[in-house]
């Protein structure tokens, strides 16, 4: 069995100094202080091997060490520990448009970039036409790169990059550039490379691409290989992991949202105030991000009475991101009976709304006023923000329960 790449017990430690020392002054003033570092293992004890002709995907969350691994494979970083063996010519191609200079024309950049990718001048001369044709930028080759759109930039970069002659290709998020037409073209190139049995290592967040091209996937988590194996299985594990993580993430997001409070307008006599608000889902779990799983949005508003008040009316209004009022209700309109309250009383009002909203941010306004609507005790305009995240596609702003029958 021939391996293209063998990685054995690879560890990469970054030292993050607590103070920076870039200038001599900083260096000298810090000379007698002990320099302290935070050690951080971007990669930890990683071992794997890649067979010749394999198309390998590397997946993992941001900061899991994917790019560090690629940079070590590409010889840009030196490993702190462990060995790496590479058999075959490795492409130095990590990112699109490396070495592109905005002051040079498209043509000059093609020559520079191709030279960096290991093509000799003669080879570039030969392939220049092909590169230009592929990029569909015939008319712009004499234009300076700084006048290119970002789409043109990546198209040109990709067109040069695929010309590289190497047995092992390293690619960091290079798929899916340009419009759908160009993307299809890129994919064709990938299929071709795959047919030519090149060893390809692709780092990507785009699972569909990984699924389509990769035979095997390395799933990195916090610098360790969480799983290495056939694409389907690893992606499944990654997704499951991510769902759990997403829930953790939601919790964090929920926390962030709480800080949003009390930034907006508030008025009223303050005889009765809106003190607190809690959003919970149907399981009674306080959250600020509602997903498909939450069929109800429960809004609990705590009011504190500072004066004796008879039969107030409580209400809410719901706005979407574009400030459009989506929904409003009051106890008065809904004919919910309220009581007489005396100073010091706490009143909790719970509104239960079906989660029919489309994804986005929503702002909640809470009101409490006199029954006749003439006097407001407290009005808190958009004092709570929450969001809806649904995977299900909703056409329109509301997903109303409905039936369709055909006769």
């Amino acid at each position: 069995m021939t391996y293209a790449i063998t990685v054995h017990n690879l560890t990469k430690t970054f030292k993050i100094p607590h103070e920076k020392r870039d200038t001599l002054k900083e260096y000298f003033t810090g000379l007698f202080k002990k320099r302290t570092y935070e050690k951080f293992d971007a990669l930890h004890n990683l071992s794997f091997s890649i067979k010749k002709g394999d198309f390998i995907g590397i997946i993992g969350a941001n900061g899991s060490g994917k790019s560090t691994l690629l940079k070590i494979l590409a010889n840009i970083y030196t490993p702190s520990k462990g060995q790496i063996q590479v058999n075959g010519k490795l492409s130095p191609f990590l990112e699109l448009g490396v070495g592109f200079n905005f002051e040079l024309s498209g043509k000059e950049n093609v020559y520079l970039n191709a030279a960096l990718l290991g093509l000799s001048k003669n080879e570039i001369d030969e392939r220049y036409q092909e590169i230009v044709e592929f990029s569909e930028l015939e008319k712009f080759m004499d234009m300076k790169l700084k006048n290119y759109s970002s789409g043109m930039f990546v198209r040109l970069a990709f067109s040069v990059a695929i010309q590289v002659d190497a047995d092992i290709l390293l690619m960091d998020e290079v798929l899916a550039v340009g419009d759908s037409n160009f993307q299809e073209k890129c994919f064709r190139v990938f299929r071709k490379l795959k047919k030519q049995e090149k060893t390809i290592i692709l780092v990507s967040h785009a699972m569909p691409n990984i699924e389509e091209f990769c035979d095997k996937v390395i799933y990195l988590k916090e610098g360790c290989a969480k799983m290495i194996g056939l694409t389907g299985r690893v992606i499944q594990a990654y997704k499951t992991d991510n769902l759990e993580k997403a829930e953790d993430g939601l919790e964090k997001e929920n926390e962030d949202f709480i800080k949003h409070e009390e930034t907006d307008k508030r008025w009223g006599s303050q005889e009765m105030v809106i003190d607190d608000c809690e959003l919970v889902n149907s399981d009674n779990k306080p959250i600020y991000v509602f997903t498909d799983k939450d069929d109800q949005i429960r809004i609990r508003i705590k009011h504190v009475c500072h004066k004796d008040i008879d039969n107030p009316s409580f209400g809410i209004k719901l706005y979407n991101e574009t400030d459009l009022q989506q929904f409003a209700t009051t106890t008065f309109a809904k004919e919910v009976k309220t009581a007489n309250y005396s100073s010091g009383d706490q009143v909790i009002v719970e509104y239960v709304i079906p989660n029919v909203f489309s994804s986005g941010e929503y702002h909640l306004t809470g009101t409490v006023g006199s029954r006749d609507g003439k006097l407001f005790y407290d009005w808190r305009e958009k004092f709570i923000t929450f969001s809806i995240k649904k995977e299900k596609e909703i056409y329109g702003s509301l997903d109303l329960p409905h039936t369709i029958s055909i006769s």
Partner: protein
Amino acid sequence: MEKSKWKYYFEITMALARTDFKLRYHGSLLGYFWTLIKPLMIFGVLYTIFTLIMRFPVEHYQIYLLLGVIIWNFFAEGTQFGLASIFSKANLVSKVYFPRILVVIASTVSASITFILNFLVFIVFVIASDISFSPSMLFFPFYLIALYFVILGTSLILSVLYVRFRDLSHIWEIMLQIGFWFTPIFYTLDIVPVEYHRFFYLNPLARIIHYSRTIFLNADIPAFKYNLIVLVFSVGILLIGYFIFKRLNKNLIEHL
């Protein structure tokens, strides 16, 4: 494989040097002429001062001075480009692997292009003067190579240190300023008391300039001993530069 690797390195170096050179005068009206104008201006000013005002009694002073100026200019520019070379190509060297020494070499190559243009002007001056050709002039490439080694060695040291200490560009600027005055560029060592000469000759630039003048103006090649000193100095600086570069290069990218 081995051969194509060297070819690849060569191609990269040339591509980088070309880009460097192209971009340097990019967008300026006079473009490449600046490579000539700059040293000629320095020459013009010094010439005016020292022939009209101070009246240096040196034969062929314009040739004497111009040679000193273009050699010094090569050294100053080369090391300044070299110093910034790695830092200014941060996005490149952290994305693509190729030996980083090539970036430094490329920067000195692009300074060499400037020097060659300057040297052509110098040749014109020589032809226009009443100096006749002497075979000793053919020895000049030796000093040129020595000079290039000094520049490259110095650049290698400066380039890796600069990534760590950004002060270095200012310090180096001052050093060059001082070096300009302590190198016999516009004056002759005759005006310096003899007991200080050995200090002046510690400066390899002083030797290279002095001996170059000897072969151009005195139709004579300096003794073997002196050439050996130049050789040892220049190769020594290159080797020291190379080893310092090798040592500090290892985790350099993480400092960028």
